């Protein structure tokens, strides 16, 4: 039973973790992109469409990543090159993504999807309990873990990561030091978009292998909240994403089991639990301040 529950938790948490990680990198570079939901749904529809056309969910995964990345370029162009307001542009990206994906996906509605099959890791998958949970998963789950580890290393152990954080904290100084602010931010925005697209692909290829309009159902917004509550730290984000997933699934089991707590209270639990725990782990104001990118959302116009 526990194994079955945990498997469901992994499926529910993976898209949140991936989308939030992408946004974390974007925000660490000082750009606030509220268009996660829009990029995610574009990823979902593109992944599904490419899979249906080619018959290969792996091409679907690539299509999802590409679609999210390409869609984020639109945001990058508007906010970085044209210096449009990031909040407004991000919101517009979400609205545009939801509408556009509906239009693009119209002919794919109701088609039975092709599920991305698990990759069984030899030997490791034979470990009792953990093997089944962690080493008989699909490609996207493995990618999500690799991304957490990789991004954590990149941000805090690599020179490029340090430069990127410097831009996020003070773009004027970074610029004065000769770091290319705009180029780095473009890359960070595109990375965020690609991650959101991958998260969308997970939705339409693994979570529920089908395409329906608005199928992200607000997950992009949850991912955005996770970034803030995790105080821009990848490992905390992983913990937060899994906690949210665990409580979401746990409350459904509690209902099915019949424990007699009103379902509205249970439905609110994932949000409450995640907020409480992340507040506790980030209660130290000083470290929170250190982690918050200081020029987040501020426009940058390079001086000559």
């Amino acid at each position, binding site marked *: *039973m526990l194994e*079955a*529950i945990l498997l*469901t938790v992994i499926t*529910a948490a993976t898209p949140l973790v991936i989308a939030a990680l992408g946004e974390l990198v974007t925000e660490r570079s000082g750009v606030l992109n509220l268009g996660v939901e829009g990029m995610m749904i574009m990823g979902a529809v593109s992944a599904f469409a490419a899979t249906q056309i080619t018959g290969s969910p792996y091409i679907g995964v690539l299509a999802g990543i590409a679609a999210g990345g390409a869609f984020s370029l639109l945001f990058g162009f508007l906010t970085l090159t044209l210096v449009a307001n990031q909040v407004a542009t991000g919101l517009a990206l979400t*609205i*545009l993504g*939801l*509408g*556009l994906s*509906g*239009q693009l996906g*119209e002919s794919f*509605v*109701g*088609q*039975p999807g092709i*599920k991305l099959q698990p990759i069984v890791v030899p030997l490791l998958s034979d470990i009792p309990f953990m093997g089944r949970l962690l080493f008989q998963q699909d490609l996207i789950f493995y990618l999500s873990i690799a991304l957490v580890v990789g991004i954590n290393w990149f941000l805090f152990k690599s020179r490029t990561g340090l430069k990127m954080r410097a831009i996020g904290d003070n773009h004027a100084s970074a610029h004065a030091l000769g770091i290319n602010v705009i180029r780095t931010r473009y890359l960070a925005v595109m990375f965020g978009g690609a991650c959101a697209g991958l998260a969308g692909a997970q*939705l339409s290829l693994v*979570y*529920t*292998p*089908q395409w*329906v*309009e*608005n*199928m992200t*159902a*607000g*997950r992009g917004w949850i991912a955005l909240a996770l970034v803030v509550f995790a105080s821009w730290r990848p490992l905390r984000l992983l913990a937060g994403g899994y906690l949210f997933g665990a409580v*979401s*699934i746990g409350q*459904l*089991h509690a*209902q*099915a*089991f*019949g424990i*007699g*707590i*009103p*379902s*509205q209270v249970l*439905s609110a639990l994932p949000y409450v639990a995640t907020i409480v725990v992340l507040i506790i782990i980030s209660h130290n104001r000083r470290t929170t301040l250190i982690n918050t990118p200081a020029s987040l959302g501020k426009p940058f116009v390079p001086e000559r």
Partner: protein
Amino acid sequence: MKKMIIALAATAALLGGFASGVQAQDKTKVCFIYVGSKTDGGWSQAHDIGRQALQEHFGDKIETPILENVPEGPDAERAIERMARSGCGMVFTTSFGFMDATVKVAEKFPDIKFEHATGFKSAENLATYNARFYEGRYIQGQIAAKMSKKGVAGYIASFPIPEVVMGINAFILGAQSVNPDFELKVVWANTWFDPGKEADAAKALIDQGVDILTQHTDTTAPMQVAAERGILAFGQASDMIAAGPNTQLTAIVDTWAAYYIKRVQAHLDGNWKSEQIWDGLKDGILTMAPYTNMPDDVKAMAEETEAKIKSGELHPFTGPVKKQDGTEWLAEGQKADDGTLLGMNFYVEGVDDTLPQ
């Protein structure tokens, strides 16, 4: 975005109407407003299929513009008013949550005929229409009791409104008529539409040991999970057989076409009246998808029950029925009245859940 395009088109049409002096009124406009997308595979799609049949029936005589993905809430009123202003002769608002918005807009446009699905507020120019979905749920309950090996089914519910509670009660009463010890586990998803969450609810129920699923949410995700896990399930609002060819036992299919044609005909003939319609299987406003993936005797039983409900011989809510707390609700042979059903806020005996209040 699509909403915006339609809005722009509507505005353009309106301006065009002024410019050309409203002589383009030879075509009657019959407008539809959906809460979801017209291809959601469930509720809104069923309405759109009705609309298409309507358009086909009347051909060039009418136009049937739609507005989809209209959220329930403050936006709904604006959306309905926009439709009304665009020259609609009739407006169908097809979700329970559009009720108050429709009432308000109907007051402002006394010459337009409004029809609201599943609500209970009406006016001189506002009719309501609904289907007795519980009749189909009762049949599903009977099938579930026959087909379940473990004697326990799972029910993915949306919101604790009378419509949904009524469905749960009808299902368990049908099941108990076959197997008095039948159990029903209920999970509230607290959403009409979230494929991921609906799938999670389905998985949770299956992991808790149910071997038949039924749903009162809008997407085919639960059907898909049931298919993957190799259990049986019922479709909702539209025939979901494509999502589970070896899984779907039957589905309650909303078939609004005949009703829409009848009402638009009345409007065209000039004898439309505000009515409160609550039709059932016998009127064809809901139909059962083909009985599949079950042995012949179960199919025969389902067909017999369906025939009995149609003929009026069987009413799913006939006593003796006790409430969940054990007190008597319906005495032997007593039938539930429509008022009680439409305001239903209690479970009958046998439901393994606490009703959210």
